[in-house]
């Protein structure tokens, strides 16, 4: 379609190709734009979350390095079970996403439900871990290590509540048979966020395990 020499002479040269990222060349009104914007929005949200945990981490190391009142908090064993549960949940959600892509709706429902239930189980497990620590005499204000343990696990749990709400929303939509193609973005965004929470949890476990 574009320019033979004569059209160029008549109409001037075609506009130079513009290099873009994101929009600017697409259709700002279409569903594609909305999907792209949702993904960008998710990335921005994750960046903010990373900054939050990074700020806590820097406080963690500054506080740990500067005083002699740091007493390592013993990690309750149940945390390892919780970790396994959360990783399993992440796998389940990824399986759900993939089965949906190949059109297997019933399998999607099963995997998604499993992921949601595992997420709730994780939160329950976290609660048990907190209770066990309390029973062993570790509270929020006991010493800086326990302060950071409760702070970071609670912050993660609050994030996780958000994730579970998203998962629950998709779950309800699925059970009501309302999962049209328009929900594909919501499914992907929720799943990526869920993986992110998984990664943050593994990071936190490493932090507690090595620097307690």
């Amino acid at each position: 379609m574009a320019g033979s020499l004569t059209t160029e002479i008549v109409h001037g040269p075609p506009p130079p190709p513009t290099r873009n990222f994101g929009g600017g060349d697409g259709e700002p009104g279409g569903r594609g734009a909305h999907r792209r914007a949702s993904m960008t929005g998710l990335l921005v949200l994750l960046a903010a979350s990373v900054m939050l945990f990074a700020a806590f981490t820097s406080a963690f190391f500054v506080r740990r390095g500067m005083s002699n009142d740091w007493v390592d908090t013993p990690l309750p064993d149940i945390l390892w079970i919780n970790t396994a549960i959360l990783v399993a949940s992440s796998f389940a959600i990824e399986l759900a996403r993939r089965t949906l892509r190949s059109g297997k709706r019933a399998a999607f429902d099963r995997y998604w439900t499993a992921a949601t239930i595992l997420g709730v189980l994780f939160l329950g497990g976290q609660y048990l871990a907190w209770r066990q620590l309390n029973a062993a005499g570790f509270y929020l204000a006991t010493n800086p290590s326990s302060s950071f343990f409760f702070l970071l696990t609670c912050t993660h749990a609050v994030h996780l509540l958000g994730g579970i709400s998203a998962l629950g929303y998709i779950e309800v939509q699925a059970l009501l048979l309302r999962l049209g193609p328009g929900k594909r973005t919501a499914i992907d965004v929720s799943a990526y966020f869920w993986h992110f929470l998984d990664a943050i949890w593994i990071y936190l476990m490493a932090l507690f395990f090595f620097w307690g």
Partner: protein
Amino acid sequence: MSSPVVHPAHHAPTGFIRRYIFSLDHKVIGIQYYFLAVFSVFLGMALSVLMRFHMVYPDAKVSLFEKLWPTGAPGGIMTPELYLSLMTMHGTIMVFFVLTTAPQSGFGNYFLPIQIGAEDMAFPVLNMLSFWTTFLALMVMVAAFFVPGGAPLAGWTAYPPLSAVGPLSGPGEGLGQTLWIISIAIFCGASLMGAINFIATTIDLRARGLSMMRLPLTCWSWFVTAILGLLGFAVLLAAGVLLLLDRLAGTSFFLPAGLLVNDQILNHKGGSPLLWQHLFWFFGHPEVYIAILPGMGVASQLLSTFSRKPIFGYRAMVYAILGIGFLGFFVWGHHMFMSGMNPYSAFAFSILTMSIGVPSAIKTFNWIGTLWGGRIQFTTAMLFALGFVSLFVTGGISGIFLGQPALDLYFHDTYFVVGHFHMIMGVAAIFGMFAGTFYWFPKVTGKFMNETLGKIHFYLTFIGVYCIFTPMHFLGIAGNPRRYADFTNFDFMGKLMPVHTFMTHAAIATMVVQFIFLFNLFWSIKKGKPAPSNPWNATTLEWTIPSPPPFDNFAGKHPVVNHGPYEYSVPGAPKDYIMQSDPA
């Protein structure tokens, strides 16, 4: 080239509440933010005038003070504690609810989607939540005035231990300080929601042909500001949570062992007040650019439009915005030279701080280059943009002094710093808002603001702010400490007091002048001269649509962009401007 007609993402609501209160329309939300900032700026200004009054007349008995603050001003005489709470609230309200909301969330919400050819922000519901969360934060902040003990004393920077030890350290340090922290935490959440919208909208909803390097500089500055807010406010939120836990849960993040407050030894141990300073200023320095970058964008836009010339060095301007934003995250230490910092660290922070002078100077140079040889139209909007450049230079130069540790050790706790940051962060940013108001008012309302009143307001304000803040530099050099409520008992201050009196009178006069603006704003909404859809012969997309804009901005069409944002006085063109959506 015809654009396909598509249905708008959401339709114009009809009920009053969905239309004007809980509206999803980015334009309504922008106006809501704007008026939230107008309310806040007058409140903050009133507090500042009370402070100036007290400094000069510390023994004055004013029955109104006693009515307002029965415990803070017994017998009508302001206590030093009340002065500190006024200072804290003045700083907090101005920084968070004026400088952070109006230039970014106010103007940005209204004009970012229109300038990029979108029908709304990417996430309208989030946008609405963002405003109402900000509103809630403001309510919680103002509530601090009305709780037992009153508003907090710890300044807008809320340094521990003062901010962390509770009512023991003074009135306002009880519930007042707790509300302060909660309000800031809520505000952080609101900023995050705003940042998500601004970033996603800029990246993904631009019209066909609107490449990043064709974005108006206003959009660039809103985009980079959103990134700064995103990264900065998350860290402030973390710091706020730690501070709240120290206050309410007995943890020791910021409170050291053996702290003696009012003859009581506190039960905390091992924490570090400096940790707060690091976390706070990691947010706090980018916050300065959150306040000023949108003003820079507006100034660039206006200087180009009213000089009838392309902006000088568009790419350099973009890279300077990015450079300022990037470097802004590595200079927080220059707020802490006084803290006993290792001189090597101080040296590194100092060098990085100085290096911000480079992009700043590029911007100033390009603004002057834009004006050079232009056919300058001295509208009120242009005057305020020129005023912005003037204040930016004045305030920026004193920053070079303060960026050097050796000088900062002397200046830091003096009025020199007060003069510096009011010039560059306070007044310059507010001039950016005035400029934006006069420039975009015809688009928002379909009417002009009154130019005569506008010019009177500009000249009086311009002279007024220089009268208030220039003497502060001299006072600082003379050793006048800041944050003191009363200087009358110091011998060495005796000769300086007339300067304070002059500044106070200038402040009161400047405050009175602001009512001209307020009158002009509301009078023009009702009775302003009707404005055509492109009254300034400007090029960007907002001037292609009717004033006020229809609900979905482009009436269901998608504009196509063929030109850069500043094509003024192009040789051979039929008019002296080519709009971005004109055919190629």
